[in-house]
């Protein structure tokens, strides 16, 4: 035991996921103080139930979108169209299943196309929109915020066009499994999150891809000269972000059993950016942490749950989120960091 505790803490504090973890832990403990049963998990009908499971389940779409966005932000980009793509994906899925409530026969469990086809087409459409962003940004050199702004403006129009302005209700039970189902006692959506996270960690940590993405984010020109295919990497980052938004769209529409072109995924892009920032990925590209973004999404969902459970009106959520964004972005700014660093050195010198 040669490592002293202070060194251990210092080593931990250097990890990027340290602060998000601390934030999440504090939030959870805060909840425990208000509700002694907060951590309790019960088994009912073979499924796990409890506040923690609930938070995990509800945060699933945000966690997935945040992971896609993390890659985009790591390339020094931004994708503000994710909410619109969530709406489009939901619209495509719901339209393909077909929202016909058959009152005569009582057999409402119908879909116009097989579920597998619905999922594949939905994800393909979402990914195509991501590729559209990627094309504008990497091949036409458009600023990321503008290219994705165009899709943000157009996307909801497209979603409404698909659903013809209606809220389409889904009456196909197997589809609900995506968002509400349980597998081995846990919500099925968590398995999707785990799969996406595992795939991404494998790709970015076990291959050089993660390094390439960071290189592009730090300096695309230098990366290109070093032989990194900067354009292709940027392109696929956006394509993947679109795919993630598509997966989230499936979960969201399955969760609420309907698709609403106008309101599905509204303000989702903001939550996703907040999750990535809270997770410790800097907005100006370079180093990124996928686990951090997942934690960031959990922090946001826990915050929302906390606000509900403490009895504060839910309207406050937006204000609290705003204050959090302000504080985190100010703390992330180089100026404040430098000042803190100077203070630390001063203390050491004294």
């Amino acid at each position, binding site marked *: 035991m040669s490592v002293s505790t202070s060194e251990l803490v210092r080593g931990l504090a250097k990890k990027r996921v340290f602060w998000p973890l601390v934030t999440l832990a504090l939030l959870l403990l805060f909840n425990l103080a208000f509700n002694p049963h907060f951590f309790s998990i019960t088994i009912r009908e073979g499924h796990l139930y409890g506040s923690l499971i609930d938070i995990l389940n509800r945060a699933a779409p945000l966690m997935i979108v945040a992971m896609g966005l993390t890659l985009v932000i790591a390339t020094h980009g931004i994708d503000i169209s994710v909410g619109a793509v969530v709406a489009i994906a939901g619209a495509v899925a719901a339209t393909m299943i077909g929202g016909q409530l058959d009152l005569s026969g009582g057999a409402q469990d119908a879909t116009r196309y097989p579920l597998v086809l619905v999922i594949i087409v939905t994800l393909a459409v979402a990914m195509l929109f991501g590729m559209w962003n990627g094309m504008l940004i990497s091949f*036409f*050199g458009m600023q990321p915020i503008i290219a994705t702004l165009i899709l943000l403006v157009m996307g909801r129009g497209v979603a409404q066009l698909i659903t013809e302005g209606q809220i389409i209700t889904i009456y196909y039970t197997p589809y609900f499994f995506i968002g509400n189902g349980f597998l081995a006692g846990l919500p099925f959506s968590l398995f999707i999150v785990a799969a996406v996270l595992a795939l991404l960690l494998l790709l970015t940590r076990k291959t050089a891809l993660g390094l390439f993405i960071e290189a592009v984010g730090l300096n695309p020109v230098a990366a290109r000269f070093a032989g990194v295919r900067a354009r292709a990497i940027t392109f696929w980052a956006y394509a993947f972000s679109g795919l993630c938004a598509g997966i989230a769209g499936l979960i969201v529409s399955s969760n609420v059993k309907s698709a609403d072109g106008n309101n599905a995924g509204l303000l989702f892009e903001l939550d996703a950016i907040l999750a990535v920032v809270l997770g410790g990925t800097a907005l100006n590209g370079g180093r990124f942490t996928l686990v951090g973004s997942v934690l960031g999404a959990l922090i946001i969902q826990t915050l929302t749950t906390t606000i509900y459970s403490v009895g504060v009106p839910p309207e406050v959520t937006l*204000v609290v989120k705003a204050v959090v964004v302000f504080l985190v972005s100010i703390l992330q700014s180089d100026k*404040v960091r430098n000042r803190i660093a100077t203070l630390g050195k001063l203390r050491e010198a004294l």
Partner: protein
Amino acid sequence: MDNGNTAASAAALPALTPAHSRPRLDPRYLPLVVTLGLFVAMFGAGSVAFEGFFSLQVFLNLFVDNAFLLIAAIGMTFVIISGGIDLSVGSVIALTTMVLATLVENRGWSPALVIPLVLLMGAAIGLVHGVVIQYFEVQPFIVTLAGMFLARGLCYLISIDSISITNPFFSDISAVQIPLPFDTSISVNVVMALGMLVVAIYLAHYTRFGRTLYAIGGSEQSALLMGLPVARTKILTYTFSGFCSALAGIAFTFYMLSGYGLHAQGMEMDAIAAAVVGGTLLTGGSGYVVGTLVGVLIYGTIQTLIMFEGSLSSWWTKIVIGLLLLVFCLLQKALARGPRSKGPIPATREVNGQQLPASASTERTAHAGG
């Protein structure tokens, strides 16, 4: 330059016209000319296709129905010229309607007191944005995104329901119709919006503030080295945008006669679209306030066309606006990358996420834009 306000608006247009008389058009004016041509073409197409479309009142209604958008878009244009962006516009408008409605209706305050108060509130929100952006060097879109959350959240804190306004001052003003020749009329909002336009043209093109604004948008580094008051100007720009949003909120209240937290949802995007379609470069440093007016008119024309068509639904507005935004961004890209473009387009900017070799993308961009 000490032109009066009225002289300024007249002087701004001649400043653009010499470009037409020259044999070759200055590429800087091309987006503006394209926009103007597009507006004439769209309005012309509507006139041919629909009975009763070609009338002065239909044209004036473009102003009546979009006065608040014009006011908000003017503030946005300033911010974009400085190289930033303001995503809080829509929610500040909503907050303004909410504060107006609750103070006037529920608390019984005098509008004479409440109106200056909300203008101050808008300016203060903008000021905070500017200070955080300038002194903490946080990206503008993150700061104004937080402001957007905050303003919407405050709306819902006041009330989650719509508050309708019955105060005689508001209903009287909203009912006023200023008569114009040929049996047409405009509303008070239009006068407010056009007044703001004149002030904005004066500020942008005839003051030190305006020149510094363009310099910052062109290259903040150079502006700093030139000894221009960069910090003050940037903060003032966001303050001005916040003020414009609050003024737009007042116009919106006259238009809707209610306060509601869901008002003006996504209007920041409409304002950005109007500015961009009007020829303002999103990388900053280039653009005209007059262009924003034409951008707003195009926006209004699309809505009017869809209304006259009858069978088309409202979401087509979003799709068409998105497509226009795309076309204009590509067009500007092509012009900016073109040889010997005179526009003060920075070669490298930090906000540009992707700096791509100009040689490779010029062909493609030019092709797509033209």
